[in-house]
């Protein structure tokens, strides 16, 4: 009986997903955030020799350039891999990350840190553009390395008739993609230096510790660079071509390079020490030569502010899982603890504060300008520090993405970078007094980090409009706000960024990676000179840190900035930067005539274009799955589930078919089928379909009867998201149901009309075993009527509220309140019992048409890591969490009997990010809440915390 029930549950679970009918599995799966389609994209297709490129018309210029990058990358990668990909490769381009996050090509929510991906099911490469052609070229090639590598390995597995579908380990996959798509840059150098100097770079034997992190990408890249230097670059391809020789990548490593992981680690770590230890001879760790203002979390964009009483630093940070704005008091050699000003990522107005992509600024009169994402586009927000409230927010019609706002010295204007519909990142000035927007640049050069001169007549910014030998370099430029003339300030074959004027306007301070990592430099200027603003054709060094510096800001002679140390971003201060610069006395000439300014890049050559057409949906298989079950009591049944969708995965068709016949004459009537269409292209997602189900059932939501039911009908569901956090859902179904109860003469016919509407809110923050901050809420109203025979007639009400009060970084106090109510004829039952709700009681053993449950739970970290070393294997298990809990509730049909409860302690362990194992020990509260049970209960199961 159990296998049949479970099998039925599996099918019904799938059907639930298709139907959006939350009353079927309302108890477990109705929360979650929303991927909102704010735009309906008018997809076009550009077919080149090897690619089908999907883009929308406003983005056509950049898409054509991207097509050229893709074909160039293909030509290069076919040498590197000695392979060609015969299938046409779909590339899907979005013009900003905001649009990219709306893609349906992957089902989950895409975090801001994802710069693009290669999706295996349909072989799609999906990428956003972020205003930088250099970065676009890199990401296209990075993803194409994945395409080639996967294609080649699948070919090898096929040739050798290998049944395994292994791929190399993730560090190799991503390391190779980086190694063959980009140069070693200052960001990579910063990470490796920090890792070596602080001792956290693993060897191959322990590289799993950093799996999935950005560190892994860079360590992988560096390992392959080392292999290339020491063993020859051909060995890298040979590692792939030898892939058939073993299912264990370490064996392949040994066969190809002649060394196993431990032997390699010795060479590799020695190489790193030789390379990076000498760095500290001439350069300092930031914490050792600057004053550390923060010491925890990821902190960016510090800005000075004085409120006439005290000195503060305002900054953007993620210190607890949410990106937020903080302030910290400084002065007299002391700093206070950071205080929260505004928390992001919890409300519709501040879905994201773009921690890694933008910055904040503060005017002299205490207005913070910062960027937030809200409902599909970016806004600039103005927060009044003195009155502690949001003054107003501003968005601009044709500007999708905004970054790096900066006030003028008189706080009457704001300059920022914005990405428009074409994907161009250009500069804009917003006049706060006149409420007027002026566009300063309009081209495909990536213009960023703008800031005003003290007199407000100029804006200095960083731009990639200089190039040499097809490499783009970011240099500093000055734009005159009177006539928009752009003048070059630096012309160096390195990247210069974050320029700011000194208060007296005689210096521009900026970062430059001319020496490998980004340090602070300055250049003397005189902006009143019409002929040449540069006083001295040299840049002078201000800092010599081992790590990179970002977001500098000045107050008189004091300088604050953000830097990377010990794998976190912290804020530092130098009291007197002028005195500091005299330590170095290092100057570099800035004139480099070999750099081209205002380079021109063309899109793909006409002869390489095969066709340009409008996108039309063509459906291909997503997955197909089949089951056969056999049971000595119920016999054999079998079925299949498969899904097709279009290339954008906006439109799905799902087919479920199975048969439970036990004899030939039952065959036709035992056919179970459901066909569903799901549409995700617009903001309102909807699904509809038809079904026919027939078979023997035992349903714990019904009375304790074993019955045969035949049911067929139609259903419809829709989901309307108000924002990232909130949505409305509605369902409708009409089903004919004929039920015959076994071992009795009871039968029941009904024509069931079921409707429901629900509201869901979810802004919870998740830790390794479940939510730890925020809250979740669902309320549902439903009605089920038998419109023909009046045999069924009940209404439903469900309320589920959960709140997570953060107590510490990894601890929280969680509360849950559920009230489920079905009332009427043949009302369905709810059920509880087990680790997922009322702990201490057998799973799903308590049933009733009404149910209530309250839980209180204190969640805390228990053990960070357990390492078990066997002679042949080392196992690392991470993040054991503990909980103490108190549950109470009950379920009933007509008469409420008593309140049940339990108290106890539990341990949870997240297994590889996929499953949470849980073990609870406690005591039931019995006998009308009067006594504890004798002894203890022990329950082991899986499942996330509520």
């Amino acid at each position, binding site marked *: 009986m159990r296998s049949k029930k479970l099998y039925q549950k599996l099918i019904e679970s799938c059907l639930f997903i298709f139907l959006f009918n939350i009353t079927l599995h309302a108890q477990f799966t109705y929360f979650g955030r929303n991927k909102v389609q704010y735009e309906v994209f008018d997809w076009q297709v550009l077919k080149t020799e090897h690619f089908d490129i999907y883009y929308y018309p406003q983005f056509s210029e950049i898409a054509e350039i991207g097509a050229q990058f893709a074909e160039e990358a293909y*030509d290069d990668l*076919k*040498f590197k891999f*000695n*392979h*060609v990909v*015969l299938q046409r490769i779909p590339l899907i381009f979005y013009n900003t990350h905001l649009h990219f996050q709306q893609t349906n090509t992957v089902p989950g929510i895409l975090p801001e840190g994802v710069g693009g991906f290669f999706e295996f099911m349909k072989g799609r490469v999906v990428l956003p553009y972020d205003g930088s052609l250099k970065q676009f070229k890199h990401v296209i090639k990075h993803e194409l390395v994945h395409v080639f590598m996967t294609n080649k390995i699948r*070919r090898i597995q*096929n*040739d*050798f*008739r290998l049944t395994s579908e292994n791929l190399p380990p993730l560090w190799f996959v991503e390391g190779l993609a980086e190694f063959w798509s980009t140069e070693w840059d200052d960001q990579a150098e910063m990470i490796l230096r920090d890792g070596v100097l602080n001792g956290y770079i693993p060897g191959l034997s322990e590289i799993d510790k950093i799996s999935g992190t950005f560190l892994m990408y860079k360590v992988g890249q560096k390992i392959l660079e080392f292999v290339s230097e020491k063993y*020859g*670059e*051909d*060995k890298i391809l*040979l590692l792939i071509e030898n892939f*058939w*020789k*073993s299912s264990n990548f370490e*064996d392949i490593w040994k066969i190809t390079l*002649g060394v196993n992981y431990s032997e390699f680690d010795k060479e590799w770590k020695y190489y790193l020490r030789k390379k990076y230890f000498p760095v500290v001879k001439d350069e300092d760790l930031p914490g050792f030569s600057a004053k550390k203002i923060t010491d925890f979390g990821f902190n960016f964009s510090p800005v000075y502010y004085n409120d006439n009483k005290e000195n503060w630093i305002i900054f953007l940070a993620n210190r607890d899982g949410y990106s937020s704005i903080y302030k910290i008091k400084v002065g007299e050699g002391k700093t206070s603890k950071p205080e929260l000003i505004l928390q992001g990522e919890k409300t519709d107005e501040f879905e994201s504060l773009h921690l890694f992509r933008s910055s904040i600024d503060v005017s002299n009169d205490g207005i913070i300008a910062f960027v937030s994402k809200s409902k599909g586009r970016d806004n600039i927000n103005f927060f009044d520090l003195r009155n502690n409230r949001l003054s107003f927010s501003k968005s601009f019609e044709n500007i999708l993405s905004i970054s790096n706002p900066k006030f003028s010295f008189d706080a009457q204007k704001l300059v920022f970078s914005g990405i428009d519909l074409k994907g161009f990142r250009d500069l804009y000035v917003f006049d706060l007094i006149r409420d007027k927007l002026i566009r300063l640049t309009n081209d495909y050069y990536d213009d960023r980090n703008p800031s005003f001169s003290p007199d407000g007549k100029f804006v200095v910014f960083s731009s990639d409009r200089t190039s040499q030998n097809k490499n783009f370099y970011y240099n500093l430029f000055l734009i005159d706000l009177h006539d928009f003339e752009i003048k070059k300030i630096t012309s160096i074959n390195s990247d210069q960024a974050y320029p700011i004027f000194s208060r007296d306007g005689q210096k521009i301070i900026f970062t430059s990676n001319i020496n490998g990592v980004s340090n602070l430099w300055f250049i003397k200027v005189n902006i009143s000179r019409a002929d040449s603003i540069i006083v001295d054709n040299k840049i002078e060094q201000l800092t010599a840190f081992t790590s990179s510096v970002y977001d500098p800001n000045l107050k008189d002679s004091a300088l604050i900035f953000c830097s990377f140390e010990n794998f976190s971003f912290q804020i530092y201060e130098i009291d007197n930067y002028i005195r500091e610069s005299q330590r170095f006395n290092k100057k570099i000439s800035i004139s480099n005539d070999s750099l081209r300014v205002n380079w021109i890049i063309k899109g793909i050559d006409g002869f390489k274009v095969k066709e340009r057409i409008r996108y039309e949906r063509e459906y291909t298989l997503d997955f197909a799955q089949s089951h056969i079950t056999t049971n000595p009591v119920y016999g054999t049944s079998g079925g299949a589930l498969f899904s097709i969708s279009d290339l954008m995965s906006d439109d799905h068709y799902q087919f479920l078919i199975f048969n439970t016949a036990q004899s030939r004459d039952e065959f036709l009537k035992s056919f179970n089928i459901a066909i569903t269409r799901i549409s995700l292209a617009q903001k309102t997602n909807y699904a509809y379909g038809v079904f026919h189900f027939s078979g023997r059932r035992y349903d714990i939501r019904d009375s304790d009867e074993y019955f045969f039911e035949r049911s067929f009908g139609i259903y419809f569901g829709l989901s309307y998201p108000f924002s990232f956090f909130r949505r409305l859902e509605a369902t409708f179904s009409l089903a004919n149901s004929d039920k015959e109860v076994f071992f009795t003469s009871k039968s029941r016919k009904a024509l069931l009309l079921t409707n429901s509407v629900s509201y869901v809110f979810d802004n919870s923050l998740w830790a390794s075993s479940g939510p730890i901050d925020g809250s979740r809420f669902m309320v549902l109203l439903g009605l089920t009527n038998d419109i023909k025979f009046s045999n069924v007639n009940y209404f439903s009400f469900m309320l589920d509220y959960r709140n997570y009060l953060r107590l510490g970084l990894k601890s929280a106090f969680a509360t849950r309140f559920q009230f489920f109510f079905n009332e009427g004829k043949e009302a369905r039952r709810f059920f509880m019992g087990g680790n997922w709700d009322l702990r201490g009681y057998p799973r799903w053993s308590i049933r009733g048409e009404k149910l209530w449950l309250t839980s209180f739970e204190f969640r805390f970290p228990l053990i960070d890591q357990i390492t078990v070393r066997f002679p042949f294997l080392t196992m690392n298990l991470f993040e054991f969490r503990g909980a103490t809990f108190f549950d109470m509730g009950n379920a009933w049909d007509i008469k409420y009997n008593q309140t049940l409860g339990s108290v106890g302690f539990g341990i949870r362990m997240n297994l590889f990010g996929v499953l949470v194992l849980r073990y609870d020990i406690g005591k039931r509260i019995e006998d009308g809440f009067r006594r504890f049970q004798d002894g203890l209960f022990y329950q082991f199961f899986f499942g996330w915390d509520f």
Partner: protein
Amino acid sequence: MVKYLKFLFSLVLFIVYITLFNSCGKKIQIPNYLKPDNIWSHYGYDSERRFFVDDSLHLPLKILYRTELKAGLNYSSVTTMDKFLFVGDLKGNVYKIALNSGKIENYNNFKQPILTNIMIKENELFIPLAATKEKMSYLISYDLVKGEEKKRIPLEGSVEKEILIVNGDIFLATTSGIIYKIRKDLVEDWKIETGSQIYSHPAAGDKFLVTGTIDGWVYIISYDGKINKKFKVNNSLKSGFSIDESKIYFGDAFGFMYCYDYGQEKFLFTKKLDAPILAIPSIDRENIYIGDLKGNVYALSKQTGDLKWKKLLGGLINNAILIVGNKLVVPNFQKKIFILDKFNGEILQEIELDGRIKFSPVYIDHKLILGCDDKKIICLSN
């Protein structure tokens, strides 16, 4: 219950039958001793690997047959003798295929991948088995008439590149960088350890053989095992060598094409091409012909290296071009075979196939035989 058991029993029988049927082909055998006619016993036609057949190729070519094998193929070619083709696949199957019809007459499974050419000598097959994680590499001597293994010679490393038969003796190199000579009586005569890895195809000239390592060392070794000359080029050697009189031609992974005159002990020329070279150069009376990974075909003077002409075909050319009379047969990895005029590179015919072409073409009995990565042997004829 009875019905259920009957069904289960039938299913098991069916599975056993299919497994046995698939795993036991009839063994490779020939009814009596073959005349050594129509021999293509080497990769490259002869031990110098010139890939040159002095015959005429009539166009247009059409597909005569496609023969599907059981597993994939590596970069190699078929071997032919009399009316049969012999080829090995990556699952260790060795096939005997009728040349005229493409029908698989027999096959044997040797359970280890075969990455190179099967060699033939007087009704004896030499089957090189690559090493796997569990098994070492072997060279098998197989008696075609008796249909059985004569001897299995174990090798250190893995034999994954072409072997040579010169005057009955066998020369081969393994990926561990060991060069072997195995005498006619199937006894190891000598071996030389280079201390590196070898992923290039050796060639044999007049009393010497030449091979190269992955780190750029070239070894010229006499047949009695003496290293006569050893020199290094700057880049990795992963293609192979071809010899014309005392001149040795080879390309490296950076795209340099070399001609080393063994007699004069000096380089006659070094020429930089547009892309890395993985193919072996083909040589006729005047020129060498080579393809690169950009899909270019070059005709260079074999004396001076001067470029006679260059043709961009696209795709990848990572296996040797075949010269048949005044035509070039160019296998392009991008599923195409090109027939070019060898005097000017003009495309005379282009044929698109279903799979990427892995085999260097073999021309025998007015038939052109190739292998593709869709597990097929293709025969083209006029």
